């Protein structure tokens, strides 16, 4: 992976071009017990429309993606590339 493909990282160099900040983050995470990793990782914020139904099922992943595109506000980030 080259430095040009990274996001939010400013330096490279330690292990085979992995940005140093990322290595530090990976190592810090590895030192934490799993329960603590969970506490830091899982967050909950209300997502309009998405969170307004208790259950949804889609025949295909393509159907799900189409539904997201047609129904969710674009700023939620569920649109296609």
């Amino acid at each position, binding site marked *: 992976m080259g430095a040009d493909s990274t996001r939010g990282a400013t330096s490279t160099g330690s292990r085979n071009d992995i940005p140093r900040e990322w290595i530090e983050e990976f190592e810090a995470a*590895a030192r934490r017990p799993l329960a603590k*990793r969970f506490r830091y990782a899982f967050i909950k914020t209300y997502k309009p429309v998405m969170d307004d139904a208790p259950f949804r099922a*889609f*025949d295909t*992943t393509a159907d799900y993606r189409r539904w997201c595109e047609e129904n969710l506000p674009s700023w939620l980030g569920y649109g296609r590339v």
Partner: protein
Amino acid sequence: MGAFEYRQAEEIRDAFDRHGVRYLFIGKSGAILLGFPDTTQDADLFLDKTPANGRAAVAALRQLAFALLVDEAADIERGKDFVQIKSGPFDVDLIFSPDGIERFEDAWRRHIDVEGFRVCHLDDIIAREATGRAEVRESLPRLRAFREYWLRNSAKSP
């Protein structure tokens, strides 16, 4: 409803084990179990798409107080490709046919056990994320870097 907690992850792990559900954590929640430092909102579970496995998953989820109506349970038993459940103590997505992974059996063969949690191999997690939405794909470079780090450190472990 609050965020998915470790205690709840243990509960779903134990309930799925009791009912013999064949599942794998996938997506960012899977990567986080493997040590990837990032944030996410939901637990994503890849389930083997068989009627028996779907029935077992419904029984386990109901035991965990997910309020599933008859039609909803039937959708899970049929193995609809993508099921989103927000009627329980935490949000969970059930995925029966994730993009980027041919068969559950292949992912199962490669899976990793983390404190009893069955987790997809990072290569499978990355294969699926690479087909995902824009926001998810933006985190791929960091996830691929983590894969390199993780593989190197796994190789060092006894």
